[in-house]
């Protein structure tokens, strides 16, 4: 009975961390990280999905390794080690993308993968120092990836629809096109509106998860 209660609490705690990173403390909209790839490369849904996959490939193994290393490393060494591991993963992801997925996509995005990786590592190297248990770290990384993915996919889909009236290269059947939306200012405005929307709804989401965690405490 007691065991089940602890498990349930763990579940809500982990879910809370996931939702906190994915939605209420969104890496892009609230922490303003990873903006550059979204603004410059998030012009088609394909780019958006590719960048999300890259983020997942880099972040998930990294956070797992980091949670295993845990407190064994001295504090001053941690950021350096994380950055080295992250860069190695990034090089691997870029290589796989170029050779076996799509060289054209890589040619479009090669500049933004390192930018995104470094941006993501920024949060990781700071946040990982207070890790409690591996599951929490995974939830944290997954949440960040999902949060980044939701925002970049939403923005790139909206921009693709307005730029070329296609979605995932499939024509939508009308020909209203506004190529100027590819300019950075449109992405900034969209990000601003999404951020405002999130600020408006975040207190309700946070309150719900805090309540569930307290109920099971």
């Amino acid at each position, binding site marked *: 009975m007691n065991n089940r209660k602890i498990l349930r609490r763990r579940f809500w705690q982990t879910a809370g961390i996931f939702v906190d990173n994915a939605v209420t403390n969104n890496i892009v909209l609230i922490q303003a990280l990873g903006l550059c790839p979204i603004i410059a490369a998030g012009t088609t849904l394909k780019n958006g999905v590719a960048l999300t996959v890259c983020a997942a490939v880099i972040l998930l193994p990294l956070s797992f390794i980091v949670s295993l290393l845990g407190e064994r490393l001295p504090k001053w060494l941690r950021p350096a080690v994380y950055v080295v591991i992250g860069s190695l993963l990034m090089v691997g992801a870029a290589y796989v993308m170029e050779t076996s997925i799509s060289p054209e996509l890589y040619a479009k995005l090669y500049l933004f993968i390192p930018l995104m990786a470094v941006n993501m590592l920024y949060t990781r190297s700071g946040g990982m120092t207070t890790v409690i248990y591996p599951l929490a770290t995974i939830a944290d990384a997954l949440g960040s990836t999902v949060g980044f993915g939701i925002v970049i996919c939403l923005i790139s889909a909206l921009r693709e629809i307005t730029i070329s009236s296609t979605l995932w290269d499939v024509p939508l059947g009308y020909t209203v096109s*506004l190529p100027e939306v590819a300019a950075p*200012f449109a992405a900034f*405005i969209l990000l601003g509106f999404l951020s405002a929307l999130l600020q408006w709804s975040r207190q309700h989401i946070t309150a719900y998860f805090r309540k569930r965690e307290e109920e099971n405490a």
Partner: protein
Amino acid sequence: MNNITAPHIRTEAASRHLTRDVLLTTLPLCIFSAVTYGVRPVLIVLFSILSAIVSECVCCLFRRQSMQVIRDGSAAVTGALIGLVMSPMVDYWVPMLGAAFAIIVVKAPFGGYGRNVFNPAAAGIAVLSYCFPQRMFTYPIASSMNPLPTGMSVGDEVVTSLSLAAQLRADATPSITRMQLILGDFAGPIGATATLLLVACAVYLICRGTISCWTVVPYFATCALVAWLFPAAGVSRMYGVLAQVCAGYVLFTGVFLINDTVTTPRFWFARLLYGVSAGVLVMLLQRIGRVECGCCFAILLLNSIAPIMDRWSWYVWRYVTRFLRIRQEVKAHE
């Protein structure tokens, strides 16, 4: 009723009086354009105003606010200013889009009139000039067809020309005489060519207290100084000053855009600073910017630092006066 007035103005009547003055001054500009080009420019301005007011109503609905807000007239002013910088042969949907953008994206999310950080009209013009430079900066020659057709879009039958600003940017020698410059008899935006009328509008607004001479005078002085120091190629120095200050948007910006009471500093010293920096930036962007109307970008840049300007210049002024007073007291003591 307290919630519908702007915070920088004490009563609702005062804010209405400000916007009514500006709307009144746009009237002669419209009439001037109507005499030259027919009804089309008036329709452009009216459609722009309509679009701004409808957008404001939509935003009111969204924020569950009373529709009475539109009675302060600020939306109408934004729409009118956007309509006035359009080319007389632009399609009607272009200024409507700009006005809707100005209200929905730049004004309403910040909390409406009195709380907006950026000048909505300048932002609307900036977006339009970035997105549709071809449509915005093609001007009909007044004598080629009078009046312009009032249909949705004007075709190829109208003879077009580059504006004076574009000619100066391209280092071409403009063929417009000084008299034509002063009378406003050259191709250009609807409300930005009538030099004499614009000067009269500025004088009227200063006399009414709607705009402050602490911004306007330093702005024009700086513009003239910059134009005199760095003359355009192929023209005489005096003509260069006249042409660059009257060309297109510089004069219009000085009379309308930099005097928006919400986004300019309040303190006189900050206003002076604002005017001078606006003059330098406007002339710079006019010369080297990507699009012809660099003015609105200059205004947007300055809007973002206007509150800081206000605070810092107030501090500086306070310290200067305190220092002077102490020195005076010390002298009196001695």
